[in-house]
């Protein structure tokens, strides 16, 4: 790689208008030389302001630098220049998923799928974002899942950010050696809920950003929907808090909902944590509230131990 960087640098020095800056910038980015990559990309952009690939490269570097706002603008620009630009579509999907806007992430991945219907990576990413079973252990990743670089369902290295995932919170005690998210296959109980009724399924503990701390969820078809639900719940919690505050109702203490196929109860065991309990319709809402209360107490104790 070092030799290639030297060769490309020399070529760019000979011909500053050359498009080799795209390859050079990406190689530097992959090596973690982000400042150098940044300079190369900016110089290239000045000479090729209407080149979608140049905006895509710059966006990837910005994303690696965790400057997500500007990365969004650059991918947005790449997409405006070339509406079907795969790097831009995947990059935007990645950023949307990162902030928990699953609908937009899906919309961008679907657009990418229309452009490249045979791209298996996109299909995998879509399945993961929609919360469908992946059929492959490698397709699952922790945190924000398959859209994260490094997983097979993430966009390729040449067209996506290699942004590291957000720093994970300490895992529950019983699973200290496990990754944050459960591996594919049977979902395992987490000690945080051990001893509680139905602890093996239908209980989910999240942090405020929608990252899973414990528990797991499957839909009625048996598909693991943990990550997708977690991403949506962060938004629900924020909106519940804002609603309660702006309507002068004080702090929210619980959100109970009856669905056509099941019931849910959402509680806050701590200031930065959310607890979701899901049961089928045979469990009355009142009983659900009691189970949720017990689970919240257990979760609160566990969270306090981590503090």
């Amino acid at each position, binding site marked *: 790689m070092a030799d290639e960087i030297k060769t490309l640098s020399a070529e760019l020095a000979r011909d500053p208008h050359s498009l080799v800056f795209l390859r050079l910038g990406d190689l530097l980015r992959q090596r973690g030389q982000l400042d150098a990559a940044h300079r190369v990309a900016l110089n290239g952009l000045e000479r090729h302001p209407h080149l979608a690939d140049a905006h895509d490269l710059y966006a990837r570097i910005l994303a690696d630098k965790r400057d997500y*706002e*500007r990365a*969004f*603008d*650059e991918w*947005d*620009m790449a997409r*405006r220049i070339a509406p079907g630009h795969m790097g831009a579509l995947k990059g935007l999907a990645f950023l949307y998923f990162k902030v928990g*806007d699953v*609908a*937009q992430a899906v919309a961008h991945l679907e657009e990418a799928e229309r452009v490249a219907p045979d791209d298996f990576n996109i299909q995998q990413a879509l399945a993961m974002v929609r919360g469908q079973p992946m059929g492959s252990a490698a397709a699952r990743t922790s945190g924000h899942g398959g859209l994260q670089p490094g997983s097979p369902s993430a966009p390729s290295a040449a067209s996506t950010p290699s942004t590291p995932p957000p720093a994970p919170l300490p895992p529950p005690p019983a699973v200290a050696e496990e990754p944050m998210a459960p591996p594919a296959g049977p979902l395992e109980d987490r000690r945080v809920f051990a001893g509680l009724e139905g602890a093996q399924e239908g209980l989910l503990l999240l942090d405020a950003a929608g990252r899973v701390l414990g528990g797991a969820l499957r839909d009625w078809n048996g598909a693991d929907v943990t990550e997708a639900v977690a991403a949506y719940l962060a938004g629900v919690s924020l909106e519940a808090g804002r609603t309660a505050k702006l309507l002068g109702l004080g702090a929210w203490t619980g959100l109970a909902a009856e669905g056509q196929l099941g019931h849910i109860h959402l509680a806050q065991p701590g200031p930065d944590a959310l607890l979701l309990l899901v049961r089928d319709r045979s469990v009355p809402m009142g009983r659900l509230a009691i189970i949720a209360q017990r689970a919240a107490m257990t979760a609160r104790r566990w969270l306090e131990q981590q503090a």
Partner: protein
Amino acid sequence: MTTRAVEAWTLQPLVKFTKEAEARLVLLMTSAGQVMAQHGFSRAVEVMSAAALGAAIIASTAEMAKELKQPPFAALSHQGERHGIFLAGFGTPRGMLVALVVYDIEVSSVGLVQLFFEQFVADLQAACPKEGVPKQVLAADFERELSDSLKTLFGR
């Protein structure tokens, strides 16, 4: 997404509003179409077009209101398949300002935009310097003024 302001006092209210209303694009301008602040736009040419169109719509509806012998319309709202737009004029000590808000209907709604827009107007009115009237942009200076504003808004 970036938020930039030509007049610094508009920045904080705008940042707060865009966050609360979860707006995708916001343009704050004078009724003549002179841009004061923007959020979410990535190209100068888009700001110029949006400002010109927004100011023209407000001017047209104000004329229609005159024809109907009633005060100017408070706001205008359109909802498309994926995005909605909200356009409204309001008074400040610096004269009438116009805000153009574009939101994603999956994320926000006209109800949320309206709700937080009331506070946005109040925040701007409170932050607006009471002394000093902004100079009129003469035709001869217009291009330079516009160019300066766009440089500030896009940092280029």
